[in-house]
């Protein structure tokens, strides 16, 4: 595309099994000028990130090509909590347990306001917990996490 890393947009990976919610989050993120990749399961998210999912709970066998390009590295993951197969919490744990990906900030979305659930996610390393329906004022909170994520990524690369 011709633009160097300094001009590259922040890239957000959105994970949600609901088609409507994927469309909504994609529009919200794009209207904030973020680049978006939206997938419908935790397994597909891990595939995209280049992490193998050993448990293979995803019933859809269609492969997602792993993302190896510098320009489209993922700067933030926003995931629904309640999903069939791998939950958003399980996805969060796998990201945080991964040496190559744990610098990526993760945000959880949920339609249910359950304090124990929220705390569990925050304790596991989620940056934010958004109640659905997610709105513009929630998406506005992502920028500082995205900037920090990109900085950590740069640091990791130079080591």
């Amino acid at each position: 595309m011709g633009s160097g890393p300094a001009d590259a947009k922040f890239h957000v990976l959105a994970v949600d099994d609901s088609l409507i919610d994927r469309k909504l989050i994609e529009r919200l993120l794009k209207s904030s000028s973020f680049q978006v990749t939206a997938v419908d399961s935790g397994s597909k998210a891990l595939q995209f990130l280049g992490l193998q999912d050993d448990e293979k709970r995803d019933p859809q066998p269609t492969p997602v090509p792993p993302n190896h390009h510098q320009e489209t590295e993922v700067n933030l993951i926003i995931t629904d909590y309640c999903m069939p197969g791998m939950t958003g919490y399980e996805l969060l744990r796998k990201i945080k347990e991964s040496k190559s990906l744990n610098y990526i900030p993760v945000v959880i979305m949920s339609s249910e306001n359950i304090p124990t659930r929220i705390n569990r996610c925050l304790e596991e390393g989620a940056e934010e917990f958004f109640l659905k329906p997610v709105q513009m004022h929630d998406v506005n909170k992502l920028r500082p996490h995205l900037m920090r994520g990109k900085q950590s990524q740069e640091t990791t690369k130079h080591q």
Partner: protein
Amino acid sequence: MDGVAQLKKRLADYTTSLYDEGYLDDQFVQLQQLQDESNPEFVVEVVSLFFQDSQRLLSELAKALEQQSVDFRKVDAYVHQLKGSSSSIGAQRVQRACISFRNYCDDQNIEGCLKCLQQLKNEYSLMKNKLETLFKLEQQLLEAGG
């Protein structure tokens, strides 16, 4: 000129009534705010997805409740999905009907669930009609040059 003004008023009054009567909540406003010149059909697209998805879920619910041995976890899962999507577009009355439905699922009350399904179908039907009318009024206004 008179035509456009009248259409505008009709649209505004109809829209107000939808909020006043609780059919729509603020989330619908959020959807409209996401629509712009680069995404001029956003609201209609999302609502169309909602119609398709809801029809599918209502039909699955009917099937699930007809079974000899009702799988309430499955029923609850379908209602949870419909609750989520109706909430995402601001379809408040449909969302509320889903919330009541889930209580009967928790109690494993088939009679209650069947009643709720009927109520849910009614609310969905009403919502669909109202939104289709709203879109028609918007289209009329556009065509009249408003």
